């Protein structure tokens, strides 16, 4: 218990760090498995992989996993390195007086430390060297910036196990009392024995920088299509171009999970682009998550809260993002199985909007957390002199259907913001919708073609008022071929459990036209790779 408390404390400390889990060769090494044991197509989890994750990174039903015996084993069995990235051509709208770099260079690398620590407690830590963010600099230009640090960092605790409610090994001493040779060990109970009936599994609690969406039918961080960061022209302040600081293309991320509003900011005055994952679908956010299974494990429940969009620690007390999700799993066979999830997510004070308002500025109340700086007006748009916190409500449904080599996924999310200032009446659309649907097919042992469709009807500031004018709808079609060169299943080929996947992808803008970033970007071809060891 003392150990657990210390770990819980450490985990809470990690909450203060700045924000994807994929396949971990460390698990493959620890449990002597190939990637396919847990993944239908890395990083996508199969049903066994989901159960493995839900059981605190242990085979379903099991309780004890011996800790690595030596420090060398600990490194081999708990640590993994993942590098990934995409080569792609920047939009030609970025070329001005100074031509821009032709290709983006892959630069993502993560180090993971993960695995079960005790029968009840597991740890997951991901350190990433860089994360693309798009922000506005002091000149009012959109610029890409990079941050690094802890992404996911959480403890997962099996509460019944922690409190001794599973029995299991604690009852092993009673074995000698069982004298009936026809029913040996009948007294003994463990997690698997509890697996049917009303109670299925858990509740489990995740504390730290958690990834709430992992349990959703369509998980944000397990996409076969890499996220592509926003494309911005060189900032004016860089002196390289006169027409700089413009947002040329939104980040190519699943639209359903995006923030869906133009002209909004996160807490701490960071921009939040419409296609950036937010709220429940953030890739990692400080918070506490409870989840478990009921009714013979058919129903997965999840609730918790995050403090997404609040980068400053103290500001998190001002921001509260509770959520709840229910998922129903159907089909017990490879012939057809899947799940449907519904969620509700309320974000209190998570977004900000800056706007023109009559003087004087709103009074500053004692105890109010102030932003570090007032963001500058966007280029050529006049002065901003008022700020308003916005609440948001997200409701949505997601599902997946799997049949042998076929995997199909879809999610639809509907977002509404509240507390929009009266001053913005008629100029701010407070509703946004997003849809993402995908189909993957395992063509051969190592080739996976995929098709993804994204649609968004974005809200936020309307045309020619602020930021990005133009249509608020976007549709994108992504086509990809992914080649798993090796994935830990042929050690004669590659003598260590490791993964290499290459991909080629074409993203087609189905709603071209105009000068705004939804319509202006041309089709892009992306060459990607994933290397993990």
């Amino acid at each position: 218990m003392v150990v657990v408390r210390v770990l819980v404390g450490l985990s809470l400390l990690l909450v203060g760090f700045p924000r994807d889990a994929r396949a971990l060769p460390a698990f493959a090494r620890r449990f002597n498995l190939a990637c396919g044991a847990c993944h239908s197509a890395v990083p996508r989890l199969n049903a066994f992989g989901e159960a493995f994750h839900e059981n605190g990174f242990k085979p379903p039903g099991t309780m004890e996993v011996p800790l690595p015996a030596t420090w060398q084993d600990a490194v081999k069995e708990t640590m993994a390195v993942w590098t990934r990235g995409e080569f792609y051509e920047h939009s030609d709208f970025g070329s001005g007086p100074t031509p821009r770099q032709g290709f983006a260079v892959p630069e993502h690398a993560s180090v993971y430390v993960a695995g079960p620590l005790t029968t009840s407690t597991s740890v997951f830590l991901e350190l990433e060297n860089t994360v693309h963010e798009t922000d506005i600099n002091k000149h009012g230009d959109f610029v890409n910036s990079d941050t690094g640090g802890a992404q996911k960092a959480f403890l997962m605790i099996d509460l019944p196990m922690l409190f001794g409610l599973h029995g299991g090994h604690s009852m092993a001493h009673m074995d000698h009392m069982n004298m009936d040779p026809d029913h040996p060990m009948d007294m003994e109970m463990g997690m698997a024995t509890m697996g049917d009936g009303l109670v299925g599994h858990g509740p489990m609690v995740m504390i730290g920088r958690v990834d709430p969406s992992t349990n959703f039918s369509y998980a944000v961080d397990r996409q076969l299509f890499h996220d592509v960061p926003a494309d911005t022209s060189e900032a004016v302040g860089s002196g390289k171009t006169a027409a700089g600081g413009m947002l040329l293309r939104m980040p190519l991320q699943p639209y359903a999970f995006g923030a869906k509003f133009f002209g909004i900011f996160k807490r701490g005055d960071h921009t939040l682009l419409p296609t950036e994952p937010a709220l429940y679908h953030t890739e990692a956010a400080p918070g506490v998550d409870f989840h478990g299974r009921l009714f013979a494990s058919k129903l997965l429940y999840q609730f918790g809260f995050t403090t997404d969009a609040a980068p400053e620690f103290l500001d998190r007390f001002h921001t509260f993002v509770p959520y709840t999700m229910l998922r129903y799993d159907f089909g017990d066979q490879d012939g057809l199985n899947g799940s449907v999830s519904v969620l509700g997510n309320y974000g209190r004070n998570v977004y900000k909007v800056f706007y023109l308002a009559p003087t004087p500025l709103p009074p500053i109340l004692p105890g109010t957390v102030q932003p570090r700086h007032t963001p500058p007006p966007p280029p050529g748009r006049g002065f901003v002199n008022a700020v308003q916190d916005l609440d948001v409500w997200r409701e949505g449904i997601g599902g997946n259907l799997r049949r042998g080599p076929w995997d199909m996924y879809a999610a639809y999310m509907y977002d509404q913001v509240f507390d929009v200032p009266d001053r913005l009446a008629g100029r701010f659309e407070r509703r946004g919708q997003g849809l993402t649907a995908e189909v993957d097919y395992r063509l051969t042992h190592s080739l996976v073609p995929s098709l993804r469709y994204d649609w968004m009807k974005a809200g936020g500031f309307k045309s020619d008022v602020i930021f990005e004018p133009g249509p608020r709808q976007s549709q994108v079609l992504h086509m990809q071929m992914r080649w798993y060169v090796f994935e830990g299943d042929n050690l004669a080929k590659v003598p260590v459990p490791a993964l290499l996947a290459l991909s080629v992808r074409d993203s087609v803008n189905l709603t071209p036209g105009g000068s705004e970033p939804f319509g202006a970007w041309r089709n892009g071809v992306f060459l990607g790779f994933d290397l993990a060891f």
Partner: protein
Amino acid sequence: MRAVAALMLVLMVTRLAAADQATAVYNHACSWCHGKDGRGDGPAAFSINKYRSPRPRDFTRGRFKLRSTPSGQLPTDDDLLRTVERGIPRYMPSFKGLTAGERRQAVEALKRFFPGFESAHPTPVTIPEAPALDADAAVRGRRVYEDAGCAACHGDRGRGDGGSAAALRDDVGLPIRPADFRFPRLFKGGSEPADLYRTLVTGMDGTPMPSYASAIDDPRALWDLIAYVRSLKRR
């Protein structure tokens, strides 16, 4: 405390309501791959190895690779228990993390899928004590390896690249790779001398690997062969 007590009560009631613990264990730990009906068609079955063998075992067919019994017979409970506890390298994790009772219940549950287990009395083969598996034994074992035709599948150097390797199929028609002797930790039946002896004598039913119980009837020659196979391990 009240909340904890209430939760304990719910769990105890549920525990009493669970009609069949063996099925509960199987469903919770095994059915993801082997399927609720034991047909090897669980929701994760395809992705285990896609278009290749091994795929999760179909218990209803009554054919088991990993046995201590002569070819064609069903495995003993201890055989099944051994597989549950060890797992199968690359494809099935060890389930030693289940309690001892649960592991036995899992075995009890999977046997129900094949009625033949009710009347079967599988008898394990006898594994004699291993002699010294030294370099001389390995030299003699090389001759046994050649005479028995092991190289046809496993290759001249034991790398699983024999002339017929690419054409091998298991009993459901999936391509199957012969073992690469450089990596004993990947041997499905285990890599200890007694494990290899058992595999050679019993064969692996459902795969092209036959029993050599009658082809090599001298235990000494089998041990020599084992010494040779073990000498191929990558250092």
